[in-house]
């Protein structure tokens, strides 16, 4: 799902320094049919997208694991929400909506999700109920095979995909990190590292190896499809802009399981030269280098309880030559840092509690962050979630494919777009954006 800002900062967004993370929201019962295992085999808490070790193995095997004959590789999903902010928003977050107490059909998605032999796919098309428009969503087509390397089992594979980190098997990086579902009518901070902002506006070819279920290595390159193609695919080609040449992506992770415990530590990097807003008139680019560290821990009990922790730190170096030349940035040398950690406990794969702390910070710029009274990108806070997933074991009276998660999210902002109080220069405080969200997420 692509998340659009409710209050768009035109020039700053065009500079690329304000790139939107997109919210993952996926649960694919066609995989459950294919593997003969219920949702909770692959997903912590019985619902996507947080993966168990088995779920990661299934993904890295290219979605090809199968327990029987042909199954229909089609799934559907829908998310609906009620959203209330502590104080009314300054203006309606989207046409057809009010300044508070909004009820939305966030998205309805159709998936082609399945695999056979060596080839598998995760292809998603989405109707955005807020924007009232269709767009292509996540795309991950893989081919894999098993080999022996130094006598150890190794999975090697390639992927054609449309978002950096979409290929990753862990729930630490931006594509599959918490929160797993959000609403585009809720206020959200503007600044985020570029690596999450290229989702669905880029196309990547990646190769990976998973050695002895422990060492994960991945390398890939991302390019921008034409503006014409992206427009037809339902996404904005100017957000954040087009990649000049190829943007390389690298990933390494070490993953160790013992008993019902699992620990992962890793690092990732991406370098992208961007023509901000698809504007090449400055004859130069903005150069972003994102590097980061991540870690996760999972502990599963034999009774179905699970405890998980995911963390990610990202440092983004920004050389904004193009934005400066175009009058979109004061400085041509900035950086952005982002840290987020979440912990969850799931009881019997049915009731979950999750808490996340997040913090984004960096130096000020009077043009990029012109709408922020401090001209800083800083945003921080905590998000709490409680959810229930009654049918993760495939025990729904509506059939094994039907699954649903109902949840309550509360986001408390300590700072928002640069400050805790009067962040916009018109008296609005970060706490005014505190958001209560009640959601229902259905998959079939």
């Amino acid at each position: 799902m692509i998340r659009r800002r409710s209050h768009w900062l035109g020039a700053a967004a065009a500079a690329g320094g304000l790139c939107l993370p997109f919210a993952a929201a996926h649960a694919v019962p066609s995989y459950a049919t294919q593997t003969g295992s219920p949702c909770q085999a692959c997903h912590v808490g019985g619902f996507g997208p947080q993966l168990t070790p088995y779920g990661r193995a299934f993904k890295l095997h290219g979605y090809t694991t199968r327990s029987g004959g042909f199954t229909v590789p089609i799934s559907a999903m829908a998310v609906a929400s009620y959203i209330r902010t502590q104080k009314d928003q300054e203006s309606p977050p989207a046409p057809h909506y009010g300044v508070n107490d909004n009820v939305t059909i966030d998205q309805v998605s159709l998936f082609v999700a399945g695999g056979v032999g060596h080839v598998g796919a995760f292809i998603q098309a989405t109707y955005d109920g807020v924007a009232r428009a269709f767009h292509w969503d996540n795309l991950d087509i893989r081919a894999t095979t098993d080999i022996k390397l130094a006598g150890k089992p190794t999975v090697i594979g390639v992927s054609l995909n449309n978002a950096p980190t979409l290929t990753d098997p862990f729930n630490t990086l931006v594509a599959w990190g918490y929160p797993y579902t959000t609403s585009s009518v809720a206020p959200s901070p503007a600044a985020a590292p570029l690596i999450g902002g290229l989702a669905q506006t880029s196309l990547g070819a990646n190769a990976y190896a998973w050695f002895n279920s422990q060492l994960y290595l991945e390398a890939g390159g991302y390019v921008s499809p034409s503006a014409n193609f992206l427009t037809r695919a339902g996404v904005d080609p100017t957000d954040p802009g087009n990649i000049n040449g190829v943007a390389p992506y690298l990933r390494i992770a070490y993953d160790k399981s013992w008993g019902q415990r699992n620990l992962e530590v890793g690092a990732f990097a991406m370098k992208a030269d961007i023509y901000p807003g698809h504007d090449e008139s400055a004859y130069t680019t903005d150069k972003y280098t994102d590097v980061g560290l991540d870690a996760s821990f999972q502990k599963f009990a034999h009774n179905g309880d699970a405890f998980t922790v995911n963390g990610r730190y990202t440092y983004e170096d920004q050389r904004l030559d193009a934005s400066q030349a175009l009058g979109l940035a004061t400085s041509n040398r900035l950086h952005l840092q982002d840290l987020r950690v979440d912990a969850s406990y799931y009881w019997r794969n049915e009731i979950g509690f999750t808490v996340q702390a997040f913090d984004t910070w960096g130096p000020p710029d009077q043009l990029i962050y012109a709408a922020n009274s401090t001209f800083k990108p800083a945003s921080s806070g905590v998000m709490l979630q409680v959810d229930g997933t009654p049918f993760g074991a495939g025990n729904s009276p509506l059939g094994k494919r039907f699954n649903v998660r109902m949840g309550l999210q509360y986001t408390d902002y300590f700072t928002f777009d640069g400050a805790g109080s009067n962040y916009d220069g018109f008296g609005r405080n970060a706490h005014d954006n505190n958001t209560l969200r009640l959601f229902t997420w259905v998959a079939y």
Partner: protein
Amino acid sequence: MTAVVERRAASRRQFLADIALFAGGGTLLAAATAAGPAAAKVGPGDVGYQPTPNGKQRCDGCTQWQSPNACKVVSGKISPSGWCSIYAQKH
């Protein structure tokens, strides 16, 4: 008139570039598909396999069990009295 021709030429180039992108990716996938036996089963370590049961839960009572000593989705020799984290009772 020249601008129109240039725009059409640029549009054609973009279209061909998009086709090349997808064709390149497809070729990569096809090349990988051509090698080796069919992938699929995951390793015992990926599912927390243990050769002992978990209470009354045993591999030979699971929907994935393949007699006499295999699993449909986990590789290697599997004990009928074993257990793993994706156990699902056979109905």
